[in-house]
C-alpha cells in the first residue's frame, strides 16, 4: 500500500538531497585539489556570503528591488493593458499582434546597451530591459486567456444583454486569470535574468550583475558564486510568492483545487 508523504518528508527529502550534493561538491574540490578560481568549495561560498552581507544587500536592492521588480510591474501592467486594448479592437489584433510577435522574437537582452544609452547607467535602464522582456509573455498570455471562454458562456452574457465592459469584468477577465498567472510566472524568471544581464553593459558600482563581472575579472569566484546563490534564492522566492497568490486568487481552477 502506498501512503502519502507527510509534510516533514516532503521537505526533508529535497533538503537532504541538496545537502548531499553540497557535501560531494566540498569533498570533490578537496580530493581533486581543484583551484578555488575554477570552482570554490561550498564552505568558501558560504564564508563569502556571510563575510560580505552589506555588499550583497546593496547589490540585491539595486538589482532586484530597483531593476527587476520595477521593470516587472511596469512590463506586466503594460502587457495586460495592451492586451485589453488589442482585444477590444479587431483591427489591432490583425495589425498590432504580428508586430508584437516580431518583437517578442528579438533577443531582448541585446537591447540592453541601447537602453543604457537612453536611460543612463542606473537602475532605470535595467528596469526598461526587464519591462520589455516581460511585456510580451504577459501580452500573449492575457490575450490567450481573454479568448478562453466558450460560446455558451458568451451566449449567457448575451441573454442578459450585457455590454463589452460587463462581459469583460464578470466573465472574460476572471476566466483569463489562470493564463495571466502563467505569464507572471514566466515573467518573474525573465525579470531576474534581464536585470542581472543588463548590468553587464554598464552600471553604477553596485548591483548583482556588476559584481559578477568585476569579481570574475579579479578571479574572486567565491564572490561570483555568492551572488549566483543569492539570485537563485531570490528567483525561487519570487516564483513562490506568485504561485502562492495564484493559489489564493484562482482557487477555483481545476489545476489549483487539489
Amino acid at each position, binding site marked *: 500500500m502506498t501512503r502519502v508523504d507527510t509534510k516533514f518528508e516532503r521537505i526533508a527529502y529535497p533538503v537532504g538531497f541538496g545537502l548531499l550534493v553540497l557535501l560531494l561538491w566540498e569533498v570533490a574540490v578537496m580530493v581533486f585539489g581543484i583551484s578555488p578560481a575554477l570552482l570554490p568549495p561550498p564552505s568558501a561560498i558560504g564564508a563569502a556570503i556571510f563575510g560580505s552581507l552589506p555588499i550583497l544587500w546593496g547589490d540585491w536592492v539595486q538589482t532586484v528591488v530597483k531593476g527587476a521588480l520595477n521593470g516587472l510591474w511596469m512590463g506586466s501592467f503594460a502587457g495586460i493593458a495592451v492586451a485589453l486594448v488589442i482585444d477590444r479592437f479587431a483591427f489591432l489584433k490583425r495589425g498590432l499582434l504580428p508586430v508584437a510577435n516580431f518583437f517578442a522574437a528579438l533577443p531582448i537582452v541585446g537591447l540592453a546597451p541601447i537602453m543604457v544609452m537612453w536611460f543612463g547607467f542606473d537602475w532605470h535602464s535595467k528596469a526598461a530591459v526587464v519591462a520589455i522582456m516581460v511585456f510580451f509573455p504577459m501580452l500573449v498570455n492575457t490575450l490567450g486567456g481573454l479568448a478562453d471562454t466558450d460560446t455558451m458562456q458568451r451566449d449567457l452574457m448575451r*441573454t442578459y444583454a450585457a455590454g463589452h465592459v460587463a462581459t469583460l469584468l464578470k466573465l472574460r477577465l476572471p476566466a483569463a*486569470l489562470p493564463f495571466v498567472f502563467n505569464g507572471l510566472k514566466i515573467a518573474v524568471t525573465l525579470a531576474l535574468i534581464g536585470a542581472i544581464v543588463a548590468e553587464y553593459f554598464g552600471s553604477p558600482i553596485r548591483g548583482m550583475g556588476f559584481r559578477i563581472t568585476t569579481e570574475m575579472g579579479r578571479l574572486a569566484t567565491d564572490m561570483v558564486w555568492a551572488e549566483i546563490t543569492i539570485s537563485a534564492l531570490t528567483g525561487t522566492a519570487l516564483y513562490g510568492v506568485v504561485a502562492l497568490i495564484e493559489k489564493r486568487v484562482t482557487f477555483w481552477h481545476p489545476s489549483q483545487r487539489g
Partner: protein
Amino acid sequence: MTSPVIDVSGVDLTFQTNDGPIHALKDVNLEINKGDFVSFIGPSGCGKTTLLRCIAGLETPTGGDLKVNGLSPEDARKARSYGYVFQAAGLYPWRTIGGNVKLPLEIMGFSKAEQAERVRKVLELVDLAGFEKKYPWQLSGGMQQRASIARALAFDADILLMDEPFGALDEIVRDHLNEQVLKLWARTEKTIAFVTHSIPEAVYLSTKIVVMSPRPGRITDIIDSPLPKDRPLNIRDSAEFIQIAHRVRDGLRAGHDE
C-alpha cells in the same frame, strides 16, 4: 383574445457553411400563449435548438417574421424578456452558487438588498436553500442545473427558454427535476419553451408538444395536450399519456420516412 407571447410565422433559416448552405429551419409557424408549457421534440439536426435560439435572439432567421412580447427577438433580448437555461449548467467556477444566481442581477443593476432577497427566494424555489455559499464544483450535476435554472429565474422574466436542460443527467435525477419544473411553472405562471429529445419528458411537461423533423428542420405536428395541469409522476402510466406519446412517436417516424 390577447396576442401570443411568442409568434413565429413563416420563419426560415439557412446557414452558409463551407460545405454549402444548410437549411436549418423551413417555414416554421407557431403561436405560444401566455402560461403555455411548450416542448420542441425531434431528432438531432431538426432545428429545435436553433428555433429556441432564434426566439432568444441568439440567431437571426433569414426569412419570415418572429415576435416575442410583440418585439423583435433582438429587442426582446435587450429588454431582458426571458431567462435562458442552456444544455450545460455553465456556472462560473469562481463564483459561489449565490454569486452565480446574482450575476444577472448585478449586470441589470438591481440594488444590493434586492439582489440578496431575490437570490434567497429563487434558491428556495429550486430547493437549493443552504447551498448559497458552496462553489459549483462542490455540487452534483443535478444541483448545478437547478442552480442554473435559479439563475434564469432570478430577474423574473415572464418567459423561460430551456434547451435540453436535463439531457446530460441520469433518468432518476431527470424525473425528479421534471417534477420540480412543473411545480415551478405552476407557482410562477411563466411561459416556458423547452427543448428535449425525450418523448416521456415532452409529454409529461407540456401543454403543447411541437414535433420536428430534420433536413430541412420543420414542424411536422403540434399536439395540444389534454392532460390536466396537475400531474403526478404516475400520470405517465395513464392511457391518455400513452396515447399522446404514441402520437409524438408517429410524428417523429413520419418525419424520418419522408
